């Protein structure tokens, strides 16, 4: 079954490319390093006392979620959301595992509640006072596309816009040899069932079984900078959105399930027709 959704907002953050504008320019061959490189964004949605000790995963997820909603000109409190991370907060997990191995009774309550996979989603809904449901998911190597499909499904079935946030952080400690991920990367999309005056792209999509699935490779200037992050599966779609031209993409949702996407740029003006 062929479905259609619209991209109404987009955001990106990595230390080298701390906004969608930076990422889009870099995709198009114009990489301008930020003048002041921050290690992570400041999670301004949190209370000042919580900002410093918020995990990296929360900081980056809240940043891109807020920017995508701004671009879509939608009140974040009105949106259902899907939060995706391959490994969750690897630094918190490393710390909790280390404490458990040595001094389990000293497990930190803050680290424990920050270790849950839905920590970023929880902080987001608290920060923007959103009572709408969120989900927090993972599909290992297929996380970006599998969670994108859940977000697209919600937009179509519920006939309302949805916020999709995907992120992974740098691995730390012994766990990093197994759950590999480098750097900090967050991206967010607002997906809607119909076009609006902020629409930047139309996505026609369907899923199909494909035993010889070859996902669209990422070959933009972003690839060498970001391919070490576990969420690098977002790059082909981001490159296509940055290019702003008609493209067909194939994303792997699972080893043998393909998400076929046909992307058409949209300038947000079609809604003006009488």
């Amino acid at each position, binding site marked *: 079954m062929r479905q259609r959704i619209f991209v109404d907002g987009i955001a990106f953050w990595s230390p080298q490319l701390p906004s969608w504008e930076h990422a889009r320019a870099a995709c198009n061959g114009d990489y301008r390093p930020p003048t002041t490189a921050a290690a992570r964004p400041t999670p301004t949605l949190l209370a000042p006392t919580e900002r410093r000790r918020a995990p990296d995963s929360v900081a980056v997820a809240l940043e891109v979620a807020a920017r995508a909603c701004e671009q879509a000109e939608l009140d974040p409190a009105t949106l259902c959301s899907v939060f995706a991370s391959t490994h969750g907060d690897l630094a918190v997990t490393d710390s909790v*595992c280390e404490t458990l191995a040595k001094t389990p009774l000293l*497990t930190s309550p803050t680290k424990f509640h920050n270790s849950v996979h839905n920590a970023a989603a929880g902080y987001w809904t608290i920060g923007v006072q959103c009572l709408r449901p969120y989900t*927090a998911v993972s*599909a290992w190597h297929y996380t970006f596309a599998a969670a994108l499909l859940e977000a697209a499904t919600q937009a179509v079935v519920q006939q309302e816009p949805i916020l999709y946030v995907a992120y992974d952080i740098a691995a730390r400690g012994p*766990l990093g040899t197994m759950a590999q991920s480098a750097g900090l990367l967050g991206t967010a999309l607002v997906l809607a069932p119909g076009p609006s005056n902020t629409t930047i792209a139309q996505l026609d999509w369907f899923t199909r079984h494909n035993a010889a699935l070859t996902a669209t490779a990422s070959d933009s200037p972003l690839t060498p900078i970001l391919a070490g992050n576990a969420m690098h599966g977002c790059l082909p779609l981001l490159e296509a959105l940055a290019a702003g031209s008609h493209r067909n993409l194939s994303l792997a949702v699972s080893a043998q399930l393909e998400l076929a996407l046909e992307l058409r740029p949209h300038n947000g003006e079609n809604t003006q027709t009488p």
Partner: protein
Amino acid sequence: MTPLAVTAWTATSAAGAGRSELLAALRERRSGLSINDFGATPLPTWIGRVAGVETQTLPEALLPWDCRNNRLAWLGLQADGFLQRAAAARERYGADRIALVVGTSTSSIGASEEAYARLDANGHFPADLQRPVVHTQHSLGDFLQHALGLSGYALTVATACSSSAKVFAQAERLIAAGIADAAIVGGVDSLCGSVLFGFNSLELISADPCRPFDAARRGINIGEAAGFALLEKSGSGPWLLGYGESSDAHHMSSPHPDGLGARLAIEAALERAELPAAAVDYINLHGTASQKNDEIEARVVADIFEPAVHASSTKGWTGHTLGAAGILEAVITLLAVESGVLPGTLNSQALDANCGPQIRLENAARPIEVALSHSFGFGGSNCVLAFGNSRPH
């Protein structure tokens, strides 16, 4: 929503492997809780430990996924012939047309914890645990996809204690959008240091068997469980009639003081099921025996439901099985719908003053039509499921 038939369903917990053991434990009010003997330095508490997880072996082809959580998942698949029912569905629909959506809180983090306790001289994981798949959140979903021979959509949902309730909602949407023709949903969470010492650090662990809704309750007991359900567009039922999801937007580890998110989730479930609150016969409450949850949930239930509804927490049988609580308690709710056995609340003596007449200590037995299951989690994630004995017209 268009109701979905629950055509196969099972759960394995401290209260027994499979539906008949669970139903017998519920009927005879036999708790599965035992004194905590998990790990090298057990905390003084009670746990809901599943018998036989340690001695369970995986088939050779599934050994790369070997860990406590996936052993428990495998044990759970054997009960009630679920593996065979899933295989039959795979033949019927095709391996790519059945969505697999499973919930967990900590997945196989127990394997990562064990590796940290056994690091070699160079600080590396021991050789037997150098298996990346068991050190990531999707370990559970990936294991089950291989164990069930499925090739379609596969996702692990991890929204803490609402995880394996929300899988029913996602499955319904995937089927409605035509991405799958049927779905296998479920959840598995197993005992591990993170949850025992983590909840202990939050001062939420009870030294005694948990007493949900008791005025003198002292906290939760951690349990482990595996459960699964097959959802199809047609069948003989029972039926998934509706679901409701919401966020508290209040606090990471404490529920909204007025139960706002819980109320929204209940209302949304009833709306999707097109039923008034008065139609509900039985509610399996979240009822963790924590101070806050039970106080707030009791008030919400007293406000929304008729005095005649039979509402109870079954945590006294199984402990709080966290990411598996949604599916385990969905199965208990389905058992109530099917058998008319309405569990009371185990271990509790004197109900908290916030409890209305809905919350019951004693079991009851009568045919029922509509039942809800509540799941409320860390991060303010709420999900309520509505099940029915027959398909509404």
